[in-house]
Each structure stands twice: as structure tokens, then as C-alpha cells.
């Protein structure tokens, strides 16, 4: 009998000495010695580098502006976890829920690539850094160029979608 909802974790084996109640990842981490000597060496070396960075920022406080640097650093962290990823998850859920089967992969590919390219191009398209006195900086019409790039990605995804649609038609019901 097939157990509905069975996960690969169900059939994981655990090594001797590993608490069988742990989650698979915890079991793996413990089994692989996640907090062994490598971890402590990495921790020591890593925090030396972190302290070099912190020292540098405070030592050059007039240039680095520590408060604003850390505000941006922590702010981006929170923004990613609290806004960006949930938004992406919501979008992914919506696509998964409403896109027809044959369109699912092309839609996911389109959203991922277009999203990343648009994110990179945002400051260019917004012309935030353009100076009329400096024509060789940001020399293109980036909104136009971004549309061209997104158009190429769309064409590629349309090709994927057509292939996927044909495949669905060939599949038995």
C-alpha cells in the first residue's frame, strides 16, 4: 500500500549514536561532524576576518559611516527574509496554482530570469545615475534595451512552452 504524503525522509537510515528523533538535516549535520574541528577552525578564522572588517569600518568612520553601513546591511537582510522571499513564494504559489501544466516550467523559467535581469537593470532603467554633462556614462536607453532582453527571454520561453504543449498533446490522457 502506498502511504500518501510519504517523504524520502521516511526511509532515511541513521548512523549509530545519532539521536533518531532528529530531523534528517540535523542527523546529517551531526553525522557529518558539523561542529567538529573544521567548524571551530572556520569559526576562528572567519571571525578574525569579520573583526578586520568591523575594525576597518570603525577606523574609517568618517568615510564608511558605520551606522548607515550596518543599517543597510541589516536592513537588506530583513528585507530579503521578510519581503523578497515571501513575495517570490507567493508568486510561485500563484503560478503553480493557476498556470496550466504545460505552461508551468516555461512560466517559472521566464519569471526567474526576467526577475533577476530586471532587478539588476533597475538602477539603469531608473536613470538614477545619469548626468547630462557626462554623456559617456550610461550611454544607452536602458528601458528600451531591457525590453529587448526581456523579449529575447520571452521568445525562448515561448519556444519552451510550445514544446511543452506539444508534449502534453502527445501524452496519453
Amino acid at each position: 500500500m502506498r502511504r500518501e504524503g510519504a517523504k524520502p525522509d521516511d526511509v532515511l537510515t541513521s548512523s549509530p549514536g545519532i539521536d533518531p528523533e532528529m530531523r534528517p538535516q540535523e542527523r546529517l549535520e551531526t553525522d557529518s561532524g558539523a561542529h567538529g574541528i573544521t567548524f571551530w577552525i572556520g569559526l576562528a578564522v572567519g571571525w578574525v576576518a569579520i573583526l578586520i572588517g568591523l575594525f576597518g569600518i570603525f577606523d574609517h568612520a568618517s568615510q564608511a559611516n558605520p551606522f548607515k553601513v550596518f543599517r543597510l546591511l541589516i536592513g537588506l537582510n530583513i528585507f530579503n527574509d521578510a519581503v523578497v522571499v515571501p513575495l517570490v513564494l507567493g508568486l510561485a504559489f500563484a503560478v503553480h496554482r493557476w498556470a496550466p501544466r504545460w505552461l508551468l516550467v516555461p512560466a517559472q523559467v521566464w519569471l526567474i530570469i526576467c526577475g533577476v535581469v530586471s532587478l539588476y537593470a533597475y538602477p539603469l532603467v531608473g536613470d538614477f545615475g545619469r548626468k547630462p554633462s557626462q554623456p559617456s556614462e550610461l550611454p544607452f536607453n536602458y528601458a528600451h534595451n531591457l525590453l529587448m532582453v526581456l523579449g529575447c527571454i520571452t521568445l525562448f520561453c515561448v519556444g519552451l512552452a510550445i514544446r511543452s504543449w506539444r508534449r502534453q498533446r502527445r501524452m496519453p490522457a
Partner: protein
Amino acid sequence: MDERFTGKPPVGPVNGLGQPVDPAPGDAPGSPPTPSPFTRRVLNRARLPTGRARNLGARLKDRGRGFIAPLSARSEHEVERIRRRFHSPLHSEWLAAVMGIGLGVSFTVCFLTGLIDYLAQHPPSWFHLPVQPINLFRVTEGVHVLTGIMSIPLLLAKLWVVYPNFFTYPPVRNIAHALERLSLVPLVGGALFELATGVANIAYWYSPMPFVFTTAHFYVAWITVGGLVVHIGAKISLTRQVVSGRGAEDATLRDKVPVELVEPHINPLTNRGFGKGLTRRGFLATVAGGAAVLFVTVAGETIAPLRKLALLAPRNPVIGLQSLPVNRTASGANVIDDAVSSGYRLVVDGRCKRPRTFTLDELRALPQRAAGLPISCVEGWSAAAEWKGISLPTLLKLVGAKRSSQIKVESIEDQKRPYSNSIIDPQHAADPDTLLALELNGSLLDLDHGYPVRLIAPDRPGVLQTKWIRRVTVL
């Protein structure tokens, strides 16, 4: 009734097709294979609060210590409930491990090339870029910017893949785990900071950065790399296990469970998924595709064959006066009047036997040397050009200075402005291709390119190729 609701353990571990799989080690031969405790806990939610020996809430509850225990148990229950909502196969250890390797490589390359570039731009006494190869700085800067840009999809995808790990209970298991999780703040925040400020910098968008970009970017890079080293130390064994197939997922993938269990939307008959979304490898390919699109549309600002495809590059190396981009204009530097003045003189002094002052005509009358040298900007673009002017060793010989002297060149600009002067190390000063250039691409220097005289030397950052030179001092 479904066995999940009876609280009884299932008969044994089975795969998605209902076939029995190998029992866990330790099961007695002949006896029904014992299901994984994890499975029992997942399937029988009634046992959740007390199921785990490490559960702080359960331990406190056993001791009957007040209200914390049920609260804690409830928290675990809630966290577990949230965590189980992430059932996409893309939130997988294998994917996280592979992307982690990719990010580790790209961030290491980015850090090392950035370190070279920062030292080249702010050279301490012990560091000088070599004169040859003349394109070294051009390559390191180009690699730095391009790997940074290509890391954007990789980083965002990795953060999405590991997002369910955000919901773990208890949040920390022990001191080591607490330190490991604490080190994620500098790693994730630093990585996002580096990529965000890097992109803003190449787009000349400085308003979101109320600090000096180079200083903040450099020191936050140390913080990020520190977090990365801690993370590598914590995850290297796990990554090795997962990627080499000794980890749980790949063990199930290869030996124990049909592929559709690991990737539930894979058709077991054809081994190809259809209609359930991207597979893990498909997701990886898509992320790589995003990075490739960014590479192709940006790299042309430094790789000539890709120039026509550089639709999203902040620069085109052939767009600008005399077919060369300009970073700081003469009007922006407020030097126009002094630069075009008939009273312009170049002063050469310092530790030399015959200090001299040259008019522009006298400079033109000196022996001229042509050199094809790149100009490479710290923002990632670079372009080769033909320069013509007085070789610095020739000038030093003329004024009776040692060939291998350290030289300071000063611009007409206000000397309080950054990069209004620069130091030339002895190796560069002795190189015949280090020029005080008067011409660019066959015509007189344009005012925005440093008329009347500018420095151009092999393998130096563009900001140190001082324009509108008025004084050369032998140190």
C-alpha cells in the same frame, strides 16, 4: 481509517510506489522494519510536543516547570507546521549544497580580485601591481565586477532554497549552533550589501549609499568573507556528503527510493517530469541561465567581442570623446580655465639635478613615444587606446633624476579632491611605456581626457591615471 490517524506505526518503510525498502540498520532480521522516528512524528502529530529528546519544551514539561513548557511545545508545533508547508523539492539539501559551492567559488574569486583592485587603487607601501602584463588590472577588475553581477541570481536562489531553514525549533541547539547561526547575519547581510552597492556603484547611483563606496564595500567584503568562512567550516562535511551521494537525499536518490520520491513530479516510467514545475537540475540550469544572460548583456563593456550584445552595460568602451569613455569631465573637475590657459606650464622638480618648467610647445618638441595601453576603470569597464607622448624615463633623464625614482604627479585640480594626484612606483616610472600623454587615438587630447597632459601607464587603475597634470615631483 488511514493509519496516520490511528497513532499506530505503519507496517514498514515503503517508497512512493508502495514497495518495501531496506529497513534501518539495527532492525532484527525477520521482524517488521521499524519506521523512522521522524516519520512517526510527522505522521502522528499528537506526539509532536514530546517526541524529541532535544525538545526544550518537552524537557521542561516533564519537569513540570510552569507555563514555558506548553508554550515552547506549541512554538515547536507551529514552527514545524510552517516548515512542512515548504514541500517543493527545490528546497533541498542537494540544491543548497551545489549552490553553496557555486557561491563559495564566486564570492572567493570576487573577494580576491576585489582585494587586488583595492590595493591597486589605494596602494600601501608594500604593494605594487607589476608593469607586465599590461592587462592584469583590466582582467582582475573585469572578473571582479562580472562575477559579482553573475552572483546575483545565485545568491537570491540560494537564499530562497534554504528559506525553510529559517523555521527551525529550537532556534539554536547549542553554543556551536548559535555561533553558526549568528555568523549567517554577516554572511547574508554582507553578501546582499556587497551586490546591492556594487550594482548601484556601476550604475553611478550614489544616493542610497551615504558613505564612501570603496571604503564601505572593501571592509564589508571582509565581514562577508568572514561569515562565508564560518559557514564553510560548518557545512563542508555536510556538503561533501550530500554532493558525493553519501548524504540522505542522494542515498535515497540512487539506491533506496524511486526518483519520484525525491523529485515527486518526476514520471517514474520515463524518468522525466512533466507538468509539476522545475526539477532541481532544471532550477539550477535556470539560475545559470539568468547568470549567463547578465554576463552576455554586461561583459561587452570590457570584452570587445561581446560589445554589440552589451545592452545592459553601464558603459560602451567606444562611446565617448575620441572613442573613449570619460569618467571625470574637465567642467566637473573645474579645470577648464587653467587647462586651456596660454600660461600653462608643466613643472618638473623634486630630487633631480636640473628642475625644469616646460611650455606645451616645449613638451611637443621632446621625443614622443606611442603606446597601445588600456584604460581600466574600477567600475568594471575598460578600453584599449593609442596614446602618444613623452616617455617618463626620458623626462626623468632630461631633468637628471634617477630612472627608478618614485614620482608624484599633480593635477590642476584642487589638491584636496580625491585622486587629484597620484604616486608612480619606481617600476612604473622606469617603464618606457609610462607616458605623459599629449595625444589620444591620433589627435590632441580632448579637454575631458586630460588636455594638455595626462598620465597613462600600463596596469594601473583609471583613477590613478591623473589628468590635467601641472607638476611632476621626483620623490
